[in-house]
């Protein structure tokens, strides 16, 4: 059974179309990166999955209709919206008590063990913790929930690089076990690239690209060329081009690698560059030399 199954998901706010007919299937055990510019509909899509907003179309998460059964669904789904939503007045110990008191699949010992590895004291209030510690606390609460689906919407917003890295490392080592599903949306595309199995690019409420990471690697290739090879490289119709010092980096979709390899070095494109290539095709990419 697919973890998330969406057909023709559509959501409008007045005249604004936030989601414009999305079809999406996320299997169990996948780690999906939901990537898109501001206003692309990422948060709306995640909110629909979490049962926080009603939508047109069909949507099933773990076999349930999220909008109709949000409270039941949350027994199996954990989510972190962003670092700011833990109540500032709550004490660490109270947060543990509360989640344990209402969540049947919360493992208090696991959360305590996680917190023991941090410098967070149980008697502290959230308002007394640093941003990074608040994220650690939230992560400790979520990690200790035996959830089948974890949804992360910009979970590391405002955190420095060390915390961001630790956050995703923990996610992989402590939460992901191959059966659980993770959906993560973030602007820090390159930082999560290595943990993803699937990628969905959203633009203006539509899916621009949906593929597994293996498919991406097979379909897209990045070529690094010196200026003398640039005209030849451009002739092969790259979808994106950027220049770093004296070298140009061109991204190709479905191109023959043999032809490209003669012009320069080949490698897999970074998600951020691919994202820019698919969502905002640079005018220079198609310009004739």
């Amino acid at each position, binding site marked *: 059974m697919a973890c998330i199954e969406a057909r023709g998901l559509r959501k409008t706010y007045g005249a604004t179309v936030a989601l414009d007919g999305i079809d999406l299937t996320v299997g169990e055990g996948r780690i999906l990166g939901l990537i898109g510019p501001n206003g692309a509909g990422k948060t709306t899509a995640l909110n629909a999955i*979490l049962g*926080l*907003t*009603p939508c047109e179309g069909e949507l099933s998460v773990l076999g349930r209709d999220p909008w109709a059964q*949000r*409270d*039941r*669904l*949350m*027994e199996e789904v*954990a*989510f*972190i*919206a962003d670092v*700011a*939503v*833990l*109540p*500032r*007045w*709550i*004490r660490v110990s*109270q947060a543990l*008590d*509360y*989640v*344990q*008191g*209402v*969540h*049947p*699949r*919360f*493992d208090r010992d696991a959360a305590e063990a996680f917190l023991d590895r941090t410098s967070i004291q149980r008697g502290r209030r959230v308002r007394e913790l640093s941003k990074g510690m608040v994220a650690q606390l939230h992560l400790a609460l979520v990690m200790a929930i*035996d959830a089948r689906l974890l949804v992360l919407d910009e979970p590391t917003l405002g955190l420095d690089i060390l915390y961001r890295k630790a956050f995703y490392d923990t996610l992989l080592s402590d939460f992901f076990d191959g059966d659980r599903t993770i959906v993560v949306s973030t602007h820090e595309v390159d930082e999560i690239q290595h943990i993803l199995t699937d990628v969905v690019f959203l633009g203006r409420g539509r899916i621009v690209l949906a593929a597994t990471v293996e498919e991406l690697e097979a379909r897209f290739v990045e070529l690094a060329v010196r200026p003398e090879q640039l005209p030849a490289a451009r002739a092969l119709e790259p979808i994106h081009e950027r220049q770093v010092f004296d070298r140009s980096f061109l991204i190709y979709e479905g191109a023959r690698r043999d032809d490209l390899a003669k012009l320069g070095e080949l490698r897999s494109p970074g998600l951020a560059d691919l994202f820019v290539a698919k969502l905002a095709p640079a005018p220079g990419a198609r310009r004739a030399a």
Partner: protein
Amino acid sequence: MSASTQAPEAPARHPVRPFYWSVRRELWENRAIYLAPLAVAGVIVLAFLYASHGLAREVRIASGLLVAPPTPLAAGKAAAAAAKMTPAARAGFALVVPYLASGFAMMATAAAVGVFYALGSLYGERRDRTVLFWKSLPVSDLTTVLSKAVVPLAILPAVAIVSAGALHLILLAWSALVLTASGLSPGLLLDHAPVGTIWVMFAYAVASLALWWAPITGWLMLVSAWAKRMTFLWAVTPPLAICLFERLAFGTDYAWRFLHQRLAGGLQDAFAPTPHGRGGELSLSLIRPLQFLADPALWGGLAFAAACLAACAWLRRRRDPI
């Protein structure tokens, strides 16, 4: 509550009590629920300690052990009313006042806390976006709304009743010390100030008012679930606007009288009328619970409150963070 009926591959699940913990959560967040009555009680105790030097004299006068010299009466209504009493009755009444006043203060404090609590109950969580955290847990909107409603409907009244009782005991204990030191029996005080009776009547009045005012609680919570800003204005302005409209358009004041009856009329049916007027008589025989419960206005109000809470749950499901 939401103890699962199905058992999927039975991973570690432990029993949960979402309602209980949600109420605890409210008490953690809103410490004014008990700190405000505590602060007011502290002020009352201090004032009573300060004033207790005259206690023995009052007890002697009230008990006929001392004939009060005629004292020049202070101007004002209270003095005029007191002038109709004998000096002994006046002294006896003075002995009762601290117990009535402490009850009234506890009730007023609880009511004030309740108004602000209800107005913020479903507004604050949207404003600070914590609603996203609460909604990430398996607690239904209805459970959450009920856990918040139980604070003004049950917890604050209980706090008022218990804190008034505690205050009464503290005042009594101090009085007993003062009287014993003056060579008087503490029992004399109880002859004039039947503290136990006062407390039971007070508890009954508070419970009645909590029910009578339930529709107001429901309305305030509804506004807090709905408004995007200025909850107080949204709560107060529409009812007043209706009254004003009726006055200007039809020249009548039914809405105003209806509101006034709801705000001030709660205890009319709860107690039997006394010939002496307010505070004239303290007796459990005045309590009329059946008459109170038979009032259709009470049940109409409770139905309105229930509808408001249902609407709160409906709104909480749909409202986005502000």
